[in-house]
């Protein structure tokens, strides 16, 4: 039987207390398990409280942090066994990342195209300049950009949406089968947000890429995801089919989450903020 | 500023101790090796021994019977020496000095190999005894006509230990002798726990010391201090906080002559400095094949323009010597003047012609050169010029040098000289740098002159490592001295005895002092052996000395340059009566043991 694309098996992460005299241990992720099927590309969404361990989980999947308990297997291979640079390159050519904040995701002192060229060189073995350019141009076209628009430009010359798309193109250069996207749209406007979300859909449907999508934005989660887990203080409190969960959450936290979502329509019905605004007086 | 409670400035003389800061200031046991300071006043004022020779004329002639009441008495084959001691000499703690102290000094040193004079004494002394309280008798292991030199202060000598103190002290190597019990006219008053100064106080019973017979010492207190770098010494003296500066650069001295109205110097006029009986020279490493040919050495000598060297090193204030004897003390009368004619007729065969290289007028030339800028500070009297600027030197003669080199098989191609084996003629001249600025300057100038002639010459500064490299023969040419004399006595054995070829170390091995040139010459050995056989005061020593001089001129194993001029600056604000060339009763250089003579001649100005 073909191994799963990704197995997250009972994973935990405990951080040692910060600071010199601190005794606190922070259990950022507790016994999280899920798996992604190799044959069925999907958008797998992680939602949760701020500080509930989403980013930590993501970095463990990306093998930039080691779980303190449990194991993560990618295509059947335990990530803990990936040590040599060759293995890591091989892994990264299959699993890629899109980072939270497009404005910090590129070195402000360097043109952005470097990342693309390097990725082409390292992951796709493009030896010649021409090969690299073709490769990069292809990837950029998939996200609606072109090499001509990007080459030689600095991050500050690009809009947030453009940067976000370049980051995605960068992830695509290596033709990964899994992309981990950590809050990729939190900083951009609704319109650009949709551009990015639609791109994810296209990746899943047309290129067969699985995507782990971490977000606070339930609306886009609903819009795009196939499955979803909801996390609170490091634990998965609810998991399942995205639409089902969001339509009818069962865990109390999920329910509160669902209820807290502000909607434009809700605003006119008065279910907005006023209900909560009963607070002790200030003066 | 330098006032200590109860020590009035007007009764204190402040002298520089060139040892600098004493690492281990509370250590006065001078009989161990370098554990504490020596020139802190300790050996000048507190200690005493049998005889002194002053490099100048002395209070009462250069020779002084100190603890001894008369000159040493040898038997005919120099295997025994008897010493008669003065009576009525007392240690500062009131105990009488006797022959037992001398015997104890000799015996305890022989017993403890770690002590300073242990080796010298155990090599020489078979037995020492005190037939009576004021007689000491030495039985020597082998004939030694100069054994008394060990107890004769030129700079220092074997100091006599207080038996009654050391006897009780246990291991003499571990005993700090603090406070020191003194035999001299002064005793310790106080000292800086950080080793910067020592104050000595005149003993109430100064009459009961050997200095007593010259009258009462002037200063009640004598402070030996570390005044710091040269510029600070100048400042300190201008501020009248330092009565005697041991030595400064010539420029510092010139500054003082310009700015101080109470300055006293050895020569009233230029060159001011006191010439030490020490002879800075260009010392060849004779074990180096390049210098084994006399013609090469002479060629290098002929390339030196001594006037320029004198200017570079001393700003002209050098007392030159063409011969291997320092032009100081009584030496000019014994050697320089009598040998003038011989020098003038000395001929050198360049291979092409014969030349007479000696130029007796160099001193006058330098005087003339300086006169425009220094004016009447430059003496005019020829005798005075001779004493100040030396007794002539060798003419700079590049032509002759070239001929000599060619004679030795060297060739000149383009602008450079090549050795007979075809390699470029390169020489490295080792100087000591900061430690001996004057010699460094002289070396640099000589190197420049050789370089201009086409020799690949370089200066090597061996600051700190000079001693080791000199001792192991790890140099090509060295600017230093291997000739040191008594100054006040014509006998040359002080340095010459160690030049015997029996002591020359093989290349790479450590050479013992002072034959740094490692020159082995049968002719010289013959002279040395002759000196050994005659008495110290035998007139033949002068004859032999002149023979030595002639041999050295012919062979040039070292190129003598000049006396080591010490720019001792004395301030007359508080004291007068310093020794000078006019009244040369002592060497003014304050770290010499015999500088104690100054004390009895100094008079307070009443300020």
């Amino acid at each position: 039987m073909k191994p799963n694309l990704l197995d997250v098996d009972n994973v935990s992460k405990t951080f040692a207390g910060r600071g010199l005299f601190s005794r606190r241990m922070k259990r950022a992720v507790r016994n999280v398990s899920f798996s992604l099927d190799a044959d069925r590309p999907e958008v797998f969404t992680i939602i949760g409280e701020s500080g509930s361990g989403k980013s930590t989980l993501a970095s463990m999947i990306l093998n930039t942090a080691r779980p303190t308990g449990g194991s993560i297997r990618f295509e059947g291979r335990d990530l803990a066994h990936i040590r040599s640079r060759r293995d890591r390159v091989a892994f990264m050519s299959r699993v890629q990342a899109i980072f939270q904040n497009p404005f910090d995701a590129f070195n402000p002192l360097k043109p952005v195209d470097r990342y693309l060229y390097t990725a082409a060189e390292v992951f796709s073995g493009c030896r010649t300049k021409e090969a690299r350019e073709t490769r990069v141009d292809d990837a950029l076209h998939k996200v609606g950009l072109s090499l001509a628009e990007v080459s030689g430009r600095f991050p500050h010359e690009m809009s947030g949406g453009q940067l976000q798309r370049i980051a995605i193109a960068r992830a695509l250069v290596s033709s990964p089968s899994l992309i981990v996207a950590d809050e990729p749209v939190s900083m951009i406007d609704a319109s650009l947000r949709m551009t990015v979300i639609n791109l994810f859909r296209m990746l899943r449907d047309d290129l067969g890429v699985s995507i782990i999508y971490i977000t606070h934005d339930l609306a886009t989660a609903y819009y795009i995801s196939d499955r979803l887990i909801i996390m609170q203080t490091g634990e998965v409190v609810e998991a399942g089919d995205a639409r089902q969960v969001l339509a009818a959450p069962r865990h109390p936290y999920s329910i509160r989450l669902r209820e807290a979502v502000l909607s434009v329509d809700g605003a006119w019905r008065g279910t907005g903020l006023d209900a909560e605004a009963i607070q002790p007086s200030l003066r | 500023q330098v006032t200590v409670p109860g020590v009035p400035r007007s009764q204190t003389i402040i002298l520089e101790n060139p040892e600098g800061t004493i690492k281990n200031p509370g250590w006065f046991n001078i009989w161990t090796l370098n554990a504490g300071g020596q020139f802190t006043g300790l050996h000048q004022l507190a200690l005493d021994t049998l005889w002194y020779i002053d490099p100048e004329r002395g209070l009462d002639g250069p020779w002084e019977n100190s603890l001894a009441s008369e000159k040493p008495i040898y038997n005919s084959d120099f295997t025994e020496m008897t010493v008669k001691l003065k009576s009525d000499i007392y240690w500062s703690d009131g105990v009488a000095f006797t022959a037992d102290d001398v015997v104890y000094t000799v015996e305890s040193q022989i017993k403890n190999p770690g002590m300073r004079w242990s080796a010298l004494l155990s090599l020489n002394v078979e037995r020492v005894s005190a037939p009576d309280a004021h007689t000491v008798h030495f039985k020597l292991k082998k004939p030694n006509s100069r054994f008394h030199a060990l107890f004769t202060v030129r700079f220092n000598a074997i100091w006599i230990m207080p038996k009654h103190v050391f006897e009780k002290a246990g291991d003499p190597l571990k005993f700090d002798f603090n406070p020191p019990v003194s035999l001299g006219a002064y005793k310790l008053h106080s000292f800086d726990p950080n080793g910067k100064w020592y104050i000595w106080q005149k003993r109430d019973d100064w009459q009961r010391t050997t200095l007593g017979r010259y009258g009462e010492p002037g200063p009640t207190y004598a402070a030996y201090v570390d005044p710091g770098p040269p510029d600070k010494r100048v400042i300190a003296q201008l501020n009248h906080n330092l009565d005697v500066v041991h030595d400064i650069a010539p420029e510092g001295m010139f500054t003082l002559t310009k700015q101080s109205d109470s300055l006293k110097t050895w020569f009233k006029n230029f060159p001011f400095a006191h010439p030490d009986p020490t002879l800075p020279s260009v010392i060849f490493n004779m074990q180096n094949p390049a210098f084994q040919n006399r013609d090469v050495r002479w060629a290098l000598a002929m390339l030196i323009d001594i006037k320029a060297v004198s200017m570079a090193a001393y700003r002209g204030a050098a007392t030159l010597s063409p011969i291997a004897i320092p032009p100081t003390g009584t030496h000019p009368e014994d050697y320089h003047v009598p040998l003038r004619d011989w020098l003038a007729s000395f001929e050198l065969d360049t291979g092409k012609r014969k030349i007479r290289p000696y130029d007796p007028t160099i001193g006058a030339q330098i005087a003339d050169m300086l006169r425009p800028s220094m004016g009447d500070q430059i003496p005019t009297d020829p005798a005075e010029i001779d004493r100040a600027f030396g007794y002539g030197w060798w003419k700079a003669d590049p032509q002759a040098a070239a001929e000599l080199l060619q004679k030795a098989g060297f060739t000149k191609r383009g602008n450079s000289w090549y050795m007979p084996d075809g390699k470029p003629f390169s020489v490295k001249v080792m100087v000591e740098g900061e430690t001996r600025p004057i010699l460094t300057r002289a070396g640099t100038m000589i190197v420049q002159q050789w370089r201009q002639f086409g020799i690949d010459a370089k200066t090597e500064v061996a600051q700190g490592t000079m001693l080791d490299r000199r001792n192991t023969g790890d140099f090509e040419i060295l600017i230093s001295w291997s000739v040191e004399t008594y100054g006040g006595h014509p006998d040359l054995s002080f340095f010459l005895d160690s030049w015997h070829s029996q002591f020359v170390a093989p290349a790479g091995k450590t050479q013992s002092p002072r034959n740094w040139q490692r020159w082995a010459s049968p002719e010289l050995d013959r002279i040395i052996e002759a000196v050994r056989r005659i008495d110290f005061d035998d007139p033949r020593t002068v004859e032999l000395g002149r023979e030595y001089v002639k041999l050295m001129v012919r062979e040039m194993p070292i190129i003598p340059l000049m006396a080591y001029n010490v720019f001792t600056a004395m301030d007359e604000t508080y004291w007068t009566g310093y020794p000078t060339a006019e009244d040369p009763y002592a060497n003014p250089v304050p770290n010499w043991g015999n500088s104690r003579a100054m004390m009895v001649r100094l008079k307070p100005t009443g300020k």
Partner: protein
Amino acid sequence: MTLLHPAAASAAAEDDAAIPLLSVDRLKAYYRLKLFGIDREVRAVDDVTFAIGRNEIYGLAGESSSGKSTLIKTIAGAIRPPLAVETGSVCFNFSDGTRDIYRLTPRELGEIRWKRLSYIMQGSMSVLNPVRRIRHSFTDFALPHVPEKGAAFAERIGRHLERLHLERSVLDAYPHELSGGMRQRVAIALATVCGPEFIIADEPTTALDVIVQKGVLAMLRGIQRELGSSVLFVTHDMAVHANLTDRLGIMYAGRLVEEGRTRDLFRQPLHPYTRHLISSLPQIGDDTPKKGLEGSPPNLAAPLSGCRFHPRCPLAIDICRREAPPMVAVAPGRRVACHVVTASPDAVAPAMEEVRP
């Protein structure tokens, strides 16, 4: 020129306050870069005029890098090179007098800060001094502006933090010990604890999950209502605008392109960009495919002639390429800068009537 005078604009607003608390008049703020081989001018705020009344929450939305933050910085008087105000004025009409913020001495400016005017910067997660405990930050920022001292002051900030769902123990923490969301809340608390008359908030809730966000917004509104102060609020989250703000301005490429009561704007967006912005918003349970804007964002360093939206505008007509559309009041309290819309205002008016409750 049919530029609306601010006074007219506020008069047009149906609010009772006769003089608006803030009036921004023909404001141009450019980033001037003339150094190191670069020579250009980024016209981040290019001729913006609007007013905010008392007791009002004014929302600002728009594309990323359309100049929202720049506008806000100019209003808050946070001008640092290379940003410079070209022309225009920013006037506050506080309870104790009117002030043109660019005519004040630094001293006078210092006096109104935090007491009357407070500001939450974009990236409020990083505005806390990393080596100072939160408690001391409160002392630094708020103590001079509140009557309470000592224990009473501590009590006041403690209570205030609780309103933001923060424990009091936060006070003893260093910023890095807090999550991004907590830091944002602390920043909000810092800006609101003195009860200023005018609060400027630039994307203050980006790092919050929806539950906390909701609480924070509620608190903000609670304070605003209680004190009758005004808020200028920027966010990309249109749902937040819908729920929080009274009026909404839409910016595109350094210009205000539409302004009106939030509800009107959502019901009946006039400017094509606004329409797009609102329609592109997905909602839970809504399965219709949404699309982002085609084409590339405008370059503020070399602004296009005419309407800056025209290359991406489905309705663009000829005049849009030539002439910049002025901001025109198309209905009371409703302004828009679009040639197409102003050309047929009649088509708009009925729609406006329709949404009136």
